[in-house]
């Protein structure tokens, strides 16, 4: 039987910082949710709740439109 380590839960950055509403202008925070390629990190990586993940994704997309964050870089890199 595989043993499960006591605390394998991922840290939830939003809860840690006490963010209740994600601001699309907060690029410093949003950058923690994108890969170096510029892609939005999956929920299984970010450890966010579905609601939070949705908010973050929408915020990143808004930020991209205003050139605050990059769009995913093209293949090869």
């Amino acid at each position, binding site marked *: 039987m595989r043993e499960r380590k006591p605390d394998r839960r991922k840290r939830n950055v939003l809860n840690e910082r006490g963010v209740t*509403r994600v*601001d*699309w202008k907060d690029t410093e925070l949003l950058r923690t949710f994108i890969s170096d390629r510029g892609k939005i990190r999956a929920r299984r990586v970010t450890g966010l709740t579905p609601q939070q993940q949705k908010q973050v994704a929408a915020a990143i997309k*808004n930020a991209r439109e*205003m*050139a605050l964050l990059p*769009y995913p870089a093209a293949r090869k890199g």
Partner: protein
Amino acid sequence: MSRHYEVMVILEPSIDERKVESTLEEFLKVIRTAGGSVDNVDIWGRRRLAYEIKKHSEGIYAVVDITAEADAVKELERQLSLQEFILRTKTVRRETVPHAAKA
């Protein structure tokens, strides 16, 4: 019905940063004459763009908080988009008055 809006504007980097406020003020008259109010004007200043817009790699960012009717905001957006020194604008509705959230 009056609502809270947040309008972000990216201006061309060739503009004198000190003139940004007065330039924006000119456009914000639309809001005031329509009975709305401008709650806050935040000039972020020159910032590197994540990608080029109209061959510019930098832009001057400004965020304006407004309380007004939808029509007034729409007209503001239209007038802003007509200016070629304005690279991009984005209007977002806010549920509550900001300020407190701003660090």
